[in-house]
């Protein structure tokens, strides 16, 4: 019953923004301030509507998945197939980065190769539904799909390579001494209304956490949209400069932001001339390689393995960026 309201609102966003800015506030079309404000008034409800819908749907989908089920599904799979499955499951399995270690240990104990586990751990934060929605809303469907496809590829191949490098000896010693103790905790089957509830809960929780970042991000975007000349950044970070992508990645790794804050900025970067490959590389290194998660993983992985992990993923992002800047 909420859906028709949603559709009505969504289809009329432009008209509502026009109404507010031009009619009610009487601002002149074309001035920097008007442009910035229109952008803000149009994009905030649009992004919020999209977010509510997608988080709700994903919340429901997630109620069918759990780390325990994922682990069972991955047991015994041959390497590459495992990488693919783990990456896809990484997107839909509910996962908080503080669970990274119990999950990592649980998977490895079940005999899942660490490369497959890494595919999961890479895909989970990297391919994020909030990021997806924001990209659809602020940049477009095509880029959003590219994001998912390249994110999956990076997760699959990074995990595969990590496994091939045979780095098991860099997992903490004490881990292999713990007895297999992960019972498959009984999981209650959820009734459909409970699943719908998890959709609502997800919306409340996630939007409750990120709405302020979205507002700030879109405000910054609005400011840049209205005031920064087009192609201002194109000269610095546009296609032909080879250093754009590595720079973007280096900037992105230590920056830890949730997707909500960074994507409005990315969309404006692109509007101002930063090429797709560079923008994608920046975005993926911000959300895919998160410093807090790495700090947590340090407790169970030696620095050599962490370094390889960062290196392989960063290289994957680099390759993606290069493909989009130079080949397409």
């Amino acid at each position, binding site marked *: 019953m909420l859906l028709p309201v949603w559709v009505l609102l969504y289809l009329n966003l432009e008209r509502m923004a026009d109404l507010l800015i031009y009619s009610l506030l009487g601002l002149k079309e074309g001035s920097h301030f008007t442009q910035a404000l229109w952008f803000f008034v149009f994009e905030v409800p649009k992004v919020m509507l999209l977010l509510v819908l997608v988080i709700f749907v994903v919340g429901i989908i997630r109620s069918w998945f*759990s*780390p325990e089920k994922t*682990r069972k599904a991955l047991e015994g799979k041959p390497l590459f197939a495992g990488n693919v499955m783990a990456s896809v499951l990484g997107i839909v399995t509910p996962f*908080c980065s*503080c*669970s990274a270690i119990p999950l990592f240990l649980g998977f490895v104990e079940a005999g899942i190769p660490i490369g497959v586990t890494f595919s999961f751990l890479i895909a989970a934060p990297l391919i994020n539904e909030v990021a997806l929605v924001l990209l659809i809303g602020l940049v477009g469907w095509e880029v959003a799909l590219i994001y998912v496809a390249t994110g999956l590829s990076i997760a699959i191949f990074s995990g595969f390579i990590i496994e091939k490098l045979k780095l098991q000896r860099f997992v903490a010693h004490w881990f292999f001494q713990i007895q297999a*103790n992960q019972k498959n*905790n009984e999981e209650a089957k959820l009734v459909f209304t409970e699943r719908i509830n998890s959709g609502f809960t997800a919306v409340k929780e996630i939007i409750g956490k990120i709405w302020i970042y979205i507002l700030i991000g879109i405000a910054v975007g609005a400011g840049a949209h209205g005031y920064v000349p087009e192609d201002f950044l194109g000269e610095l970070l546009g296609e032909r400069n080879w250093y754009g992508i590595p720079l973007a990645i280096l900037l992105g790794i230590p920056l830890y932001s949730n997707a909500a804050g960074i994507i409005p900025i990315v969309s404006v970067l692109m509007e101002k001339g930063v090429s797709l490959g560079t923008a994608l590389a920046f975005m993926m290194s911000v959300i895919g390689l998160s410093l807090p998660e790495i700090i947590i993983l340090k407790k169970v992985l030696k620095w050599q393995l962490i370094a390889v992990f960062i290196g392989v993923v960063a290289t994957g992002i680099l390759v993606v960026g290069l493909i989009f800047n130079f080949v397409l």
Partner: protein
Amino acid sequence: MEIKILGGGCANCKRLEKNTIEAVSELNLNATVLKVEDFQEIMRYGVMRTPALVVDKKVVSSGKVLSSEEVKALLIQPV
């Protein structure tokens, strides 16, 4: 009653701890509440998702930040 909160130290785990302490005090229970951050010990309970709540050595919840109401409901149940 011995209550343990298993978690690696992120914000969610701290919230569960806070809610649990609140629930215990509201129920006026004679219980100790401990936070376990060491992963070796966490692993021994067999949980794959943190934060997790352990009451008298039994895992009653994992992967969810329970509200103090939800914790109270769990504590009242005969284990």
